[in-house]
């Protein structure tokens, strides 16, 4: 049944598209979606025009949602040009019409009590963290932000991060901006210094896995926003699953689009992604 928080399908309009470092930042007038969006949710865009040869929607975290944009409710996304779909998006003229479904997935869970939080973003993975930071701060949380990427061009949101977080730390693999190395090379020090009680992370799966392992060692929960290939984004196709241990201890191939996209990193069987872990519900029956 459609409810006030149900996703909508809207014919949106591209309000602006600009390059930011290696990424593209796109604002889309999408009334209804903007009003419903919460940090950690995503939208799914149809690509290719009509008739398209690319049937599957592309999923993007909501970077910003403004209920009162000049053109009505507006959402913003940040994306990397990866393949044919994002290439097409990157060439869309302003005022193009785009078919957009959202908001999809669950918002990031927000702690009931004010905690010291660390928000870690890898590459464009920082996109959903700025609106999260805002919410966390209104709930009295301390927000530390840590952004990493291979190069400075692939860091997204330095200015936004300064505004959104109490403190912003940057790291690049080539050392061109901020510290040199990977996020995990500096995590120990950062967590100690800021006495992190809760992590939110979004970025490449390898990074999320490393953070999860690390956080678990120090008994700090880490909410990870994962990216598994999605055909539908709305929970009907079963392509987007990951092996995840439920509260009941049972491992299930769990749809990341509707049960996620963010999960407690400790529940994901990172090592076994790409296989069916033994003990997974229904695994023994697989032909």
């Amino acid at each position, binding site marked *: 049944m459609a409810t006030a928080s149900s996703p909508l399908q809207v014919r949106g309009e591209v309000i602006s598209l600009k390059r930011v470092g290696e990424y593209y930042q796109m604002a889309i007038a999408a009334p209804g979606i903007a009003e419903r969006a919460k940090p950690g949710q995503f939208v799914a865009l149809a690509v290719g025009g009509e008739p398209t040869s690319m049937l599957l*929607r592309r999923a993007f975290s909501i970077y910003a949602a403004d209920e009162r944009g000049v053109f009505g409710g507006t959402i913003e996304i940040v994306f990397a040009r990866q393949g044919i779909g994002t290439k097409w998006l990157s060439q869309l003229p302003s005022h193009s019409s785009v078919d957009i479904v959202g908001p999809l997935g669950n918002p990031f869970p927000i702690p009931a009590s004010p905690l010291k939080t660390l928000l870690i973003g890898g590459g464009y993975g920082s996109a959903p963290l700025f609106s999260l930071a805002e919410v966390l701060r209104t709930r009295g949380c301390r927000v530390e932000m840590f952004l990493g990427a291979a190069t400075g061009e692939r860091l997204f949101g330095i200015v936004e991060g300064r505004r959104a977080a109490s403190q912003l730390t940057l790291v690049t693999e080539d050392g061109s901006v901020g510290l040199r190395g990977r996020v995990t090379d500096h995590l120990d020090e950062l967590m100690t210094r800021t006495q992190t009680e809760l992590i939110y992370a979004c970025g490449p799966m390898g990074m999320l896995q490393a953070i999860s392992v690390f956080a678990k060692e120090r008994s700090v929960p880490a909410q990870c926003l994962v990216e598994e290939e999605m*055909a539908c984004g709305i929970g009907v196709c079963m392509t987007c699953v990951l092996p995840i241990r439920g509260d009941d201890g049972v491992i299930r191939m769990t749809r990341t689009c509707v049960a996620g996209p963010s999960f407690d990193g400790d529940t994901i069987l990172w090592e076994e992604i790409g296989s069916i872990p033994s003990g997974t519900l229904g695994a023994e029956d697989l032909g």
Partner: protein
Amino acid sequence: MSLKVVNRKSPEGNMSVDLRTTLGSLLLPTPVLTASGCAGSGKELSAFFDLSEIGAIVTKSIMQNPRSGRATPRMAETPSGMLNSIGLQGPGVEKFMNEDVPWLAQTGARIIVSIAGNSVEDFARTAARVRRAGDVVSAIEVNISCPNVSNRGLVFACDPISASEVIRAVRRSVGGLFPIFAKLSPDVTDIVSVAKSCVDAGATGLAMINTLLGLVIDTKTMRPKVAGITGGLSGPAIRPVGVRAVWQVHAALPKVPIIGMGGIMSGADAFEYILAGASAVSIGTATFHDPTAALRIQNELSNLLAERGFTALKEAIAYGHRAADEEVGQ
């Protein structure tokens, strides 16, 4: 600039066209169904439209026991199509009948349960459990495109004899009045012979086509893109194959009701299947592109029928087969 930002609305359907269709003893208010595996168990789609507005929800194929399905990645996009390798993930028939079906029933939707199995007995037992639910289930679709463990993993649907064994067993376990539809695979030399043996074994009608066996190699990793190596190809890319299958089977078995599917994206595509001989159509991959596809297609279809001068869907079924001098229903 002209600002046109409106919620996407499906076109209204033409109310004057009688969309009712019959599939054996089953009467449906409209011929538009969801395709198995492309609408889950209905719940998620209900956020986008009222499930009772379309003909029926065909649920994801369910097996006797819970099943994890295959490892990931499970999909690849292909030109005008996609490859999937889900491996029939599901909670098992017991949980499904206790949780998903009752929820779906209270929406007022008609329910066609798709079942699958690794052996003839699996199918029979799963069908029996479904039948026990009584009238809340309108019909069973039998997905025989599964590997038969007792026959070197050969897919049931690829062999007229295995296919008929499954259908006979299901027919026996659900009794004579309950409609059952055999879902056929296009990956065969002679789909008509498989269709015939399913009908002879007691199928009320046929659903076709399931996906085509395909393979995509990721040119970056230089390995098959999906973990299952091969997968099922669906979407508009395969539509001409589906329409051909429906056409051939209807020509050979004109009285057997057919649920047509494969690449239906629009009302015109659905109409193509109807003209070829389908009495109903299922919407699969289109739902991934457009969550309201089934309802939109239904409305487009009723408008198109009206435009072409039909007052009832039934007049259009198999109209593409008419002789050159036969112009009825116009």
